[in-house]
């Protein structure tokens, strides 16, 4: 199948001031787009030519994995941001977070710390294991928790390209801003589908 850059549910200037329009122009318009283009070129004539994105993430390696997982990861990230985001989750997800981490504040602190301490490029994930228990994972580069048998629920990009134009070396500032944008409705739906 031909993979496509998904349309975003917001304009590129709408996440200001937490994430600048310029950052999104490059992050979505160049990086995300390049992963899509590279993936489509790389799968031609391979066993993955007709595969869905999740199958590619699950079974491929090398360049196909790197580009396929980066398409998956960026879509998963961008689709869960919103100009009206922020605040706290409700319902079953809120209960599960409290049960696992003690409180929403404790979860936020642990997730933020994972983001601040991931060395190099990568992603921080809130995932559910096969018993639907929540946990936080750090994955390097294009890493995706599907390959560990986990179901991803929330992700934060900590590649430098996600924030360097806005906050430079101050990754913790970007992480703080990220919480203003999380669209908990989308995250709740992902959790409810488990």
């Amino acid at each position, binding site marked *: 199948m031909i993979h496509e850059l998904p349309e975003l549910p917001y304009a590129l200037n709408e996440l200001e001031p937490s994430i600048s329009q310029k950052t999104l122009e*490059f992050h979505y318009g*160049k*990086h995300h787009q*390049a992963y899509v283009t590279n993936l489509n070129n790389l799968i031609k004539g391979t066993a993955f030519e007709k595969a869905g994105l999740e199958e590619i993430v699950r079974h491929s390696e090398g360049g196909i994995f*790197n580009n396929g997982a980066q398409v998956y990861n960026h879509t998963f990230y961008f689709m869960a941001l919103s100009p009206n985001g922020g605040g706290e989750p409700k319902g079953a997800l809120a209960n599960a977070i409290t049960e696992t981490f003690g409180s929403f504040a404790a979860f936020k602190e642990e997730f933020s710390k994972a983001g601040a301490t991931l*060395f*190099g*490029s*990568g992603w921080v994930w809130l995932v559910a294991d096969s018993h639907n228990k929540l946990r936080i994972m750090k994955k*390097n*580069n*294009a890493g995706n928790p599907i390959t560990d048998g986990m179901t991803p629920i929330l992700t934060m990009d900590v*590649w*430098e*390209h996600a924030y*360097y*134009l806005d906050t*430079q*070396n101050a990754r913790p500032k970007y992480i703080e801003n990220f919480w203003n944008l999380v669209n908990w409705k989308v995250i709740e739906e992902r959790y409810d589908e488990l």
Partner: protein
Amino acid sequence: MAFELPKLPYAYDALEPHIDTRTMEIHHSKHHAGYTNNLNAAIAGTDIEEQSIENILANISKQAVAVRNNGGGFFNHDLFWQVMSPKGGGKPSGSLLAAIEKDFGSFDSFKEEFSKAAATRFGSGWAWLVKQSNGKLVVSSTPNQDNPLMDLAEVKGTPILGLDVWEHAYYLKFQNKRPDYISEFWNVINWEEVAKRFQD
């Protein structure tokens, strides 16, 4: 003995227009300073506190990951600043040029191989020109802040030229266009310094 952030051998704006002032300032005063401070914190009170950085890196597989990451970051950036110069660029000469031509066929094919190693390093890392223990020159690349002095490196030897391809090294000026940054690097390489490291 605590490690100190080395001073740059030139001003922050000296590598303009190839590498911009703001990038140099943040790269040195924030990133490199961060690695230096974190390295000192990671070795404080341990039995490697008095060792040279080269010794620490040579036995890095026995150390905590914080020593690997920050010790690598401390050493790599120091080398990086020194192998660049506002009067850099061009080609090496003498025995270094002869060795490059012998091991890569020509300076241009070396340049191509090194640039490709830098462009294709996925995520954060470095490209290196390495002098191996038998004297042969090879190009390699390492992830994150690893380097060829580390006992766990795939290609081991003495790094004589290094290029930082973490996004923080080029994002303010070049954004997603890493290949443009790599092209500019060739205009600032201090071949005298690289030759000195080759001969040592």
